[in-house]
């Protein structure tokens, strides 16, 4: 999952303030945002979410960050839901939770950005009703313009499938009543990780 060589931080951007504002804005579009100091804490939070949903099956799109957070022995054999990282076309449709890593977060709109060229990224973030998104905290940019400028620097390096996600899926097609969760997930959890050990950023 080649993230273009993004130089994310600009002078004057302060991760803490960016995170706080992101949390507010993503909250407005019904995403739930949390922050973990390191991978260990993040793994605990993920486990909590999974237990809360009561999912029997979890799918994760492989990436260095996801792999380092979710070891195969996340649960002692037989004590937790099945975790699948392969053959996701078969497993994602009836999984309760999907997990994937993201490349950027945009403060202004509470948006996550992901190079979703890898099919697994799309399967786990579209099919299960709950999606858990992981983002390194130092990957927050202020605006959509900033994000597109980063990707636009190298037009030849644009990934075939670049996904922007702001909150869970939604509709207002019946009587204009906002309803969360249509074809995509109805719940989106975002976990920022301050020191993502396994990921080379």
């Amino acid at each position, binding site marked *: 999952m080649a993230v273009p060589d993004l130089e994310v931080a600009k002078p004057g951007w302060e991760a803490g303030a960016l995170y706080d504002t992101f949390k507010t804005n993503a909250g407005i579009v019904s995403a739930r945002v949390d922050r973990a100091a390191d991978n260990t804490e993040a793994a605990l939070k993920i486990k909590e979410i999974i237990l809360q949903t009561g999912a029997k099956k979890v799918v994760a799109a492989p990436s260095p960050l996801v792999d380092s957070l979710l070891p195969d022995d996340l649960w002692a054999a037989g004590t937790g839901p099945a975790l699948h990282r392969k053959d996701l076309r078969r497993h994602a*449709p009836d999984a309760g939770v999907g997990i994937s890593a993201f490349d950027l977060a945009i403060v202004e709109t509470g*948006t996550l950005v992901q190079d979703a060229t890898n099919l697994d990224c799309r399967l786990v973030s579209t099919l299960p009703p709950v999606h858990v998104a992981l983002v390194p905290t130092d990957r927050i940019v202020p605006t*959509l313009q900033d994000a597109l400028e980063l990707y636009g620097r190298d037009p030849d390096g644009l990934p*075939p499938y670049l996904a922007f*996600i*702001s909150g869970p*899926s939604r509709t207002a097609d019946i009587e204009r009543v906002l309803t969360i969760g249509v*074809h*995509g997930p109805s719940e989106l959890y975002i976990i920022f990780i301050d020191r993502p050990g396994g990921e080379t950023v």
Partner: protein
Amino acid sequence: MSDTSIKGDIRAALSNENLRGALGRFADDYLESRQAAYRNKDFNDLRDKIAEIKSRAAGRMEELAERFAAEAARRGAKVFRAETAGQARDYILNLARERGVKTIVKSKSMASEEIHLNRYLAEAGMEVVETDLGEWIIQLCGQRPSHMVLPAIHMTRGQVAGIFSRETGEELPPEISRLVKVARENLRQKFLKAELGISGANIAVAETGTLVMVTNEGNGRLTTTLPPLHVAVVGLEKLVERFIDAVPILEALPRSATSQQLTSYVTMLTGPAPAVDASGSPVQKEMHIVLLNNGRTEMQSDPVFKEALQCIRCASCLNVCPVFQLVGGHVFGYVYTGSIGSVLTAFFNGLENAAEIQSLCLGCQRCKDFCPAKINLPRLINDLRTRIAQQSGLSLPQRLFLKKVLTNRSLFHGLLRAAAVGQKPFVKEGTVRHLPFFLAGQASVRNLPALAEEPLRNWFNRYAAREAEEKAGKGAAREADKRDSKQENNQETRKESKPQSKVESTTENKAGDAAEGAAYRAKTEKEAGRKTGSKARPRAGLFAGCLTDFIYPEIGISMVKVLESTGFEVVFPRGQTCCGYPARQLGAPEVMAEVARQNLAVFEDAGADYILTPCPTCTHALKNIYPELSAGDPALQARAAAMAGKVCDFAELVYRQIKDGTAPGLRLKALNKKVTYHDSCHLKRSLGITLEPRELLKTAGAKLVEMPYADRCCGFGGSYFLKYPELSAQILDQKLDCIRKTGAGLVAVECPGCLMQLRKGLKERGEKAVEARFLAEILADQL
């Protein structure tokens, strides 16, 4: 569509309570939520950027299409350039056949609706499933979307429950969350088995061959992810040059369309991404992009209509349209609806098919304020109107009137005078129909005012004579004026001897007038004394416009009084005639050009420093349209521009003079009344006047109470209220409700058309506690 069928559709729509309730509530909510969505963005800055990006792209459409095709192909997509709808359909059908496709999932795409793709594929035996919730509802019940962004806005949850129950064979309750779940479950099965996904795109980036899709439900992501074959149908107007050009469009589209900062999903596709088949084995993903022309290059080569290619399909122009709010999209009869729909239909379906739907436009110009692509929709529709009229021709009486009567002022005014007299026994019938803008009207509408017994021009004769007398006394008469008015007088008397004598027989009125005149003279003499002494006063030339001249002369008289008291000399050049705007509306711009030349000459002779008209439409004509009309004749255009420079609105001038201190402040008795102000569409949107009338009302001591949606049209629209009386009446009704909410006993307007409409409505409602009056009248009363 025939005239009768559109009128039938309008009646059906107006009697559909669901539709009207839903659209009406939406219209109100939309304004608020949209504004909230833009709270951290400068809308005007954004629309400037979009207009620049899109007009630049439209100007180089072919070049960008080639570049896009090459870049997308380089990244593995197959690009097909479809010149016609038929070519696009055939390409997609053949492809689907070759790949043995049985089930197709579609995410919402206007372009595929434009080419009626579903029907075509279904006829070939394929199952085509719309997966956008609103589109699916519409598909299941065999209707057409009624709105570009909210296709099923006209339906209730109960109706949707009925439709879904039929589809699933399960009795479903009218619970929205449950219905959405049913859609998810049912459509999920289709996604998982479909062999082909068809989508549209909101932006196509030439530099990188990227397609950008803006969606909310997640069906767009599934459509482009699960089936191993993807076809995107993309109109050429979606092209932009650079990747970064997508930014302002992505910033404006969600805010304008759905009042969101950004939609849940934005998907950027640059060449095919990996896919697997239904069994999970990796397959080569195929991505086909059908670049659709279907009339777009023709639009691009049109100097006026190329602007329509800037459209980003946000549907704001529908949401704020007072007519759309009442009738919804079905009445428009084609895929694209509302203001932009009229223009697009003309190009995609032929000019003749746009004839009826463009006539639904009131001309209130509200859409112009909201368009994030900065398209001058009113201008496009106006031009469309002219072209349609020129193609279908004027009716015989219209042609006769416009070409023979309107261009011959003395004949025109002579007829009006004759009508004024002739109306006497039939005043109820409302002989205002003799005025030019009533030409297009057919229906019979009641409660119209009668023609005035004495037109403003005749009152002014007497007034000018008095002025001249006074001046002669002081030895300061302007000879030219006297000569002018004497000549005119003779002419008028000769031609109108019969009507004049009749008017004179109504002694009652005359006595009243004389008394008023005397009182007024005394006052102005006093005023003059306190003014600048012998220093020449600025000269304001009054351009009355037909409505004020012949129906509401009291408006003009009030203006004269106020202007006098703020230190102006007022002249009424008698050779002035109709501004010609109605002729242009009827599709005869050459008639307007002819009267423009006449008015120009008359006002040049008058030597006015300012030219004022009580009618915003006339002001707009004199100020903005006359210079346009004389393009191609530099000498004439320079003269028109010189005149345009002097034209201003009454409130604008008076307020400016007072504020600058160049004129003595208005000495007004305090009005001490609750007053509300209605913005005339042309005054606000063609001339940008909103502050000045309000400030003047406050100066007069009025307690100004804003009504909700003060700038929403009253439904007059020139001849509109005769052509579509039911629509006009409904819009008027909404306006009157807003007025009533203020609790004000007086509604001030600065447009004689609005005045006529509001008075008509108040009368029909039997509303005695509210009075509609012209701003100048209100001020003059407090002098």
